[in-house]
């Protein structure tokens, strides 16, 4: 309901404002151009994602101080805490960054964003920055028409900065003129009611503009034009900080629970910081005055003092919250628990990641592993084995021989709810993200898509062989029972081997990939041995011809399953970041070569 009313109301208010006041129109022009510049700046920086930014983020978030520093630096460079928080949400959704690391980045971004106030207060309002805006726009637009992705990116960044400067210029002009016709300062309210009122206005303005940066520039220009009092500007800045969390919350709507937790952390941090700033406002004003006089900021230079205040209260917030970062993460884990679902849901595929190729790859790989886990469970039960038996049994062959428990469940139903749903989500996600990919990323995605398809094929094969495997594992005929147990052993052993390699943190990707070829050759040898054995037991009348036919059919299913599993593992255990493993991909033997090697 609110959504339906909000936009028309804003449009009506704006139209009315334009009609009664040309100065208001000029301020609104400035804000719009400023926001347009932010959009350009964001799209410009996105041209450099797809490798560099992601790798940097991965390396710089393993310790809290590193992620804090990363947040500060990246937001200072990009001048957009929103972009940094949205990228962080996409990373956290993909499992590339831990929640604690993500919270560190968000804290850092809150400090980094205060540099914007310094730039505007120090230069934006004193130097005629509109003089720089036009050349930047011209160069930026020329470059953004170039073919090269990176030149386009540089062009967008330049044009973005040009628009930002132009926006500031219009806001400044608007407020200068506005000053003569209307005095906002007369509306100032003293004391705490005034603080809360202006904090609420600051938050609302940021929610509408989706940018605390824009609100802050607006506050600074209004303050420079003496349209608001210094005290009220402090409250507005506090409100802007709280309002900016809305961008992260909107960004997290399409993210998974981890992304939502991060947005929650952002909201809690900014609320706590805001409350601290409001409660201790007199102490902050004293501290700002004291710092300003030490660094040579004039007593009446309120814009610079506001910049000092903005930095000071954000740094205070970080200092207060950093020791509580783990408790905050624990609280968010409890407050926003992972849903336990009857139907499997993708865990790592977040729309927030779709524009970042490196993140897409990591997300898809993790999701295919998730699919593997679901399929593992189903395949284990399909062969009347428990997952724990496969993974933990010391004498595996003996365990399989001894276990004659039938697992009664509807394989079709579980396939639909645990495997097909995930597979569908993976295929859909890959097809939607492929348009942003360079050829090498696309190839890797293709490999992962095939791996997912192979997992699904495995489940289908197990479904086929389950009927006879269940029937003959209870048979009194020792020979047929033994053969079916061999078949169960073969698949379970491969599942176990893949799982073991995956769980080893520092496994050698290249060797892991090539080890799968050895297993493929072993399967071929096993199949040859089976053919010989079947002929022998048939001749000795130890099994019936019907049993032999079933066995041969089911061993074909088992071989297909094993081959699919090993092909899939070769795609999943590889790492495009490990160049020796990439070389190993070229050395993987094809079917003929394996046949040759196993019979030579």
């Amino acid at each position, binding site marked *: 309901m609110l959504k339906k009313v909000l936009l028309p109301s804003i449009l009506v208010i704006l139209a009315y404002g334009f009609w009664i006041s040309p100065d208001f129109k000029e301020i609104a022009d400035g804000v719009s151009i400023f926001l347009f510049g932010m959009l350009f700046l964001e799209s410009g920086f996105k041209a*450099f994602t*797809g*490798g*560099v930014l992601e*790798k940097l983020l991965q390396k710089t978030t393993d310790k809290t101080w590193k992620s804090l520093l990363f947040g500060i630096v990246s937001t200072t460079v990009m001048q957009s805490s929103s972009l940094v928080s949205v990228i962080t949400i996409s990373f956290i959704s993909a499992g590339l960054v831990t929640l604690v690391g993500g919270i560190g980045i968000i804290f850092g971004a809150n400090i980094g964003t205060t540099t914007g106030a310094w730039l505007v207060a120090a230069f934006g309002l004193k130097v005629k920055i509109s003089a720089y805006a036009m050349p930047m726009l011209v160069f930026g637009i020329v470059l953004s028409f170039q073919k*090269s992705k*990176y*030149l386009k990116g540089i062009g967008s960044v330049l044009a973005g900065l040009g628009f930002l400067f132009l926006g500031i210029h219009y806001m400044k002009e608007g407020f200068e003129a506005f000053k003569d016709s209307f005095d906002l300062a007369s509306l100032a309210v003293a004391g705490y009611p005034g603080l809360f009122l202006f904090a609420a206005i600051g938050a609302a303005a940021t929610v509408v503009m989706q940018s605390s940066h824009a609100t802050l520039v607006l506050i600074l220009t209004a303050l420079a034009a003496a349209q608001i009092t210094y005290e009220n500007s402090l409250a507005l800045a506090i409100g802007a900080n709280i309002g900016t969390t809305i961008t992260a919350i909107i960004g997290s709507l399409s993210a998974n629970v981890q992304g939502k937790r991060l947005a929650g952390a952002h909201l809690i941090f900014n609320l706590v910081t805001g409350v601290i700033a409001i409660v201790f406002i007199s102490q902050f004003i004293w501290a700002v005055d004291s710092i300003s006089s030490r660094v040579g900021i004039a007593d009446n230079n309120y814009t610079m003092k506001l910049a000092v205040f903005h930095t000071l209260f954000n740094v205070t917030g970080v200092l207060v919250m950093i020791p509580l970062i783990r408790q905050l993460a624990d609280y968010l884990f409890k407050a926003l628990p992972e849903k336990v679902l009857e139907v499997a849901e993708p865990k790592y595929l977040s729309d927030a990641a779709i524009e970042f*190729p490196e993140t897409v790859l990591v997300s898809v790989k993790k999701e295919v592993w998730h699919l593997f886990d679901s399929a593992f469970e189903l395949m284990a039960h399909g062969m009347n084995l428990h997952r724990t038996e496969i993974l933990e049994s010391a004498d595996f062959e003996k365990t399989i021989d001894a276990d004659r428990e039938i697992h009664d469940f509807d394989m079709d139903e579980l396939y639909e709810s645990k495997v097909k749903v995930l597979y569908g989500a993976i295929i859909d996600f890959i097809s939607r993200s492929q348009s942003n990919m*360079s*050829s*090498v*990323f696309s190839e890797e995605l293709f490999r992962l898509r095939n791996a997912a398809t192979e997992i699904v094929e495995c489940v289908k094969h197990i479904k086929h062989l389950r009927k006879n495997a269940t029937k003959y594992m209870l048979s009194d005929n020792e020979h047929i029972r033994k053969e079916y147990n061999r078949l169960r052993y073969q698949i379970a052993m491969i599942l176990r081997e893949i799982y073991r390699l995956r769980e080893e943190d520092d496994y*050698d990707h*290249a*060797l892991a990939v*090539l080890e799968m*070829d*050895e297993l493929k*050759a*072993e399967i071929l*040898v096993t199949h040859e041995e089976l053919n010989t054995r079947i002929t022998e037991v048939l001749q000795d009348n130890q099994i019936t011809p019907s049993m032999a036919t079933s066995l041969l059919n089911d061993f074909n299913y088992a071989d297909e399953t094993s081959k699919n599993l090993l092909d899939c593992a070769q795609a999943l255990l590889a790492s*495009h970041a490990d*160049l*020796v493993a*990439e*070389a*190993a991909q*070229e*050395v993987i*033997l094809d079917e003929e*070569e*394996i046949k*040759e*090697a*196993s019979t*030579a």
Partner: protein
Amino acid sequence: MKFIRLIDKFENLFDKQTKGRPIKPGELQKLEQLLADKKSRYEAKLESTQDPEKRKKLETKLKVVNAQLEKSKQLASS
């Protein structure tokens, strides 16, 4: 002209990060070394194993590693 070269260098720098790299002889050499080490391990195991079933498995593994080594060498020379 220099500007264009500068842009080319810039693109190459980013392409290395974003588009992956062609396989270099050095990487194949490392791979060959890994496979050669593995081969020696299997040969040592084979010498010390008497169980015919285990020996057969090891022989199969050894044949695969040999084929992979051969393929890697061919790739390096091409």
